[in-house]
């Protein structure tokens, strides 16, 4: 047994309990779904299911091809070719990640709707009087939702594709050419198949986000599982129905989880080259360079620059009418929630990573894996899964208090921010845990042994070896959790206490009242916060990119 920081029986117990706690939403959903008094499955199948299924499939097809087209082409152009502006576009292409789907959707609704600036302008120019005089695509539609999500989700595919191309050893393509194959054939037969696992991971992540999206679908009135769960719960408080919808959605998601994990495994075999020489880039010139530039500019402009500029303009326009008190109270709430969750998330993630590293029990690893699935759970599913047991707990206490003491204890857990933080942790602990695990992975047992053999005890080792080495990954984890909490919409919407709102829920509230311009300050703040992880990602990219180095 290795020398250890604490006694490890308690570590096992801790890790296991924690994981069990987070499995609570799953279990409660399963139980609730099974407890439906009437046979709701049949009812669901007859009524809403076909519509949800159809919309979901179209969404996946649309966003899948959209992100694939934008992400892979941009990834290829940026990593394998050289054209004016490439260096700036390399990071600019990540910027749309800062926009949550619901915010970009709000901006485009405001811009493109009948009374929006674009259509008004067109009517003025062409002398049209009303919508019967001309045809204009309806943004609040399935197609619009596909476009919105493709614009903000393609960076996943771009990022992973780009890295995959860059990490391929240039000698593989050279080997192919030396064996008599043209550059084009070599790309199709060697480079693309090698990048395929990374592309699949990227598209799977985009698909999970699509399936989990609530705000865009709700704003565009596209009925999917997520909006269905929300309405089944808030519309008719039909818990079994909502739980069953949640489970159906989880089945879809699990397909992509498996696809993602399988592809990641495959990726490992492909990245085995020891000599990393950067690819010589194809130099594009003239019309080709122009088209490459335009192609890469398109998602940056429509996924970031234009909506950001519009938000800034609207924020300035609506500045006089803005209720600053309301803004600061919302921002305060968001900050508070994000900070508490980030702190707890990082602490728990670190403890779990330690625990699972030191534990030899299969059960513990299994439990930890369960927690790491949380990230794939859509907000409404988590909210429901957390709400049901907490509400049951509150009701039980309340009944007992009324019966025993004759007064109502109210909503002890489900009406406070406690339940919000808990739900966030279920969703985002995986992020913190992942960072902690990879950070710990860099600290080999030989380092611990070396420190001990140099006369440092285990606490000194923790302080002087582990913490300094872990600090940067912990900061990253904290930042990621913080930003994700700031952006989170559906779970917050479903769980927020009475008279409480965050930046995200207020912005969404304005949007549903068609006060989109008034929401711009709120949206802009969320986007600004969302820029931090993008900057972080860029810095990491820069560090990990192979140098343009030639072995001579």
């Amino acid at each position, binding site marked *: 047994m290795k020398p250890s920081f604490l006694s490890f029986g308690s570590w096992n117990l801790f890790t296991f309990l924690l994981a069990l706690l987070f499995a609570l939403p799953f279990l409660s959903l399963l139980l609730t779904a099974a407890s439906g008094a009437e046979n709701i499955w049949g009812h669901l199948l007859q009524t809403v299911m076909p519509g949800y299924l159809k919309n979901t499939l179209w969404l996946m097809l649309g966003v899948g091809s959209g992100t694939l087209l934008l992400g892979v082409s941009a990834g290829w152009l940026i990593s394998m070719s050289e054209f004016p502006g490439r260096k700036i576009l390399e990071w600019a292409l990540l910027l749309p990640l800062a926009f949550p789907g619901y915010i970009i959707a709000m901006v485009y609704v405001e811009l493109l709707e009948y009374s929006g600036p674009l259509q008004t302008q067109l009517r003025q120019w062409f002398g049209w009087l009303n919508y019967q005089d001309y045809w204009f695509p309806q943004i609040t539609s399935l197609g619009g939702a596909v476009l919105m999500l493709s614009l903000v989700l393609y960076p996943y595919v771009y990022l992973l594709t780009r890295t995959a191309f860059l990490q391929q050893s240039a000698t593989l393509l050279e080997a192919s050419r030396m*064996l008599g194959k043209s550059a084009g054939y070599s790309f199709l037969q060697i480079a693309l198949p090698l990048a395929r696992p990374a592309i699949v991971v990227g598209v799977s992540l985009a698909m999970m986000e699509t399936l989990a999206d609530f705000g865009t679908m709700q704003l565009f009135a596209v009925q999917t599982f997520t909006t269905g769960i929300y309405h089944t719960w808030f519309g008719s408080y039909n818990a079994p129905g909502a739980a069953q919808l949640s489970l159906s959605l989880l089945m879809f998601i699990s397909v992509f989880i498996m696809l993602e994990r399988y592809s990641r495994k495959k990726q490992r075999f492909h990245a085995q080259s020891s000599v990393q020489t950067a690819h010589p880039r194809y130099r594009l010139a003239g019309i080709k360079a122009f088209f490459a530039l335009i192609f890469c500019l398109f998602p940056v402009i429509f996924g970031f620059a234009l909506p950001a500029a519009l938000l800034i303009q609207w924020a300035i326009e609506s500045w006089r009418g803005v209720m600053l008190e309301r803004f600061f109270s919302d921002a305060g709430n968001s900050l508070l929630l994000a900070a508490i969750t980030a702190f707890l998330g990082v602490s728990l993630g670190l403890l779990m990573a330690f625990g699972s590293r030191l534990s030899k029990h299969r059960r513990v690893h299994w439990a930890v894996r369960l927690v790491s699935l949380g990230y794939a759970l859509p907000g409404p599913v988590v909210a429901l899964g957390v709400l049901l047991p907490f509400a049951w707990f509150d009701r039980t206490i309340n009944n007992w208090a009324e019966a025993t003491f004759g007064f109502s204890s109210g909503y002890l857990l489900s009406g406070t921010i406690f339940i919000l933080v808990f739900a966030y942790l279920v969703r985002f602990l995986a992020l913190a845990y992942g960072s902690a695990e990879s950070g710990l992975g860099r600290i080999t047992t030989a380092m611990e042994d070396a420190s001990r053999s140099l006369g440092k005890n285990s606490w000194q080792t923790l302080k002087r070896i582990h913490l300094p080495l872990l600090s940067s990954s912990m900061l990253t984890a904290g930042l990621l959790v913080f930003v994700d909490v700031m952006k989170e919409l559906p779970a917050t919407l479903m769980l927020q206490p009475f008279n409480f709102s965050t930046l995200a829920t207020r912005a969404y509230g304005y949007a549903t009242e068609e006060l989109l311009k008034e929401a711009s300050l709120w949206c802009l703040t969320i986007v600004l916060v969302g820029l931090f992880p993008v900057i972080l990602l860029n810095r990491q990219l820069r560090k990990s990119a192979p140098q343009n180095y030639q072995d001579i």
Partner: protein
Amino acid sequence: MIECRNLSKSYGTLEAVSDFNLSLEEHEFLSILGPSGCGKSTLLRLIAGLEVPSQGRVFLQQREISAEKIILPPERRNFGMIFQDFALFPHLSVASNIAYGVTGTRSEKQKRVRELLELVSLPHLAAKMPHQISGGEQQRIAVARALAPWPRLILMDEPFSNLDYQLRLQLRSDIHDILKHEGVATILVTHDQVEAITFSDRVLLMHNGKLVQDGTPTEIYQQPQTLWASSFVGEANHLTVEWQDKALKTPFGRLNVPAEIGKQTRILMVRPEDFRLESATSEETNATVKTVDFSGSVQIIRVELTGGVMIQVSCSPHSVHLAQDSVKISAERFLCFNNSGHSLEGFSTK
């Protein structure tokens, strides 16, 4: 068959290959030997058509294939290349890797794959994936893949440097035999002098992008043309000498050489095995043994000459000298170098 004329390649201000001339005959085995960073890989890539020369030309059977641009693209040169990291396609099976460059019908491809797997003695690995086989096996498969399309020339870039010592020796001789059997001309790039000497018919010694010496392995070893060459290939003792009273005055005594050479000689180069070390009467001794390292087939003895100069001598393992013994040192064979480090002539005292 291959000829490089005045070939140069610069990266910015760095001249990786500079005014290089090379010619290769059919069936010949040529090594390009030099320290890492000397430009030898770049030279190989220029020949392969993977780099564009800054100046000069490459000819294939008197036909120009590279000049200021690539005239014949690499995929149409029909050269096989073996890379340092083997560059097996990780998503293709061993058999598919070998078949990759082969043209023809399915059964022709299968036949060729079988032949090559037999040739490298690995027929049982056909269905395996590259990550499932060992480094040595990957190397043999890389050779088989390069040979499969019947190349007219094989280019090898440090092909053995990723393998451990024992395996390297074994593979080097196996692959040498396979290539000789196929009769295909080969250019090997390496920084390992033993590899260059044992593998090839002819060695080009390269330093700072320039050709230093072109010769057979024996010539390179026995008649190095510069001091740098003498110490890069094999071990060398360099001794400062002076022309005095019609003889070379060396730290171990006077040597008779023709006056026109002796007058220009500044440095004497003696290989460790060319020193003779013997016991002698006290007036004849000119050196003291400092350390004796026994390493199996030879003993490396470090000796301090009168005047404090240290030299290295290799003796038979049966030699019986001990540290602090006084001994007599003489040179059986030596080379004279002028003050710019170029060889004048070599002499044998017997």
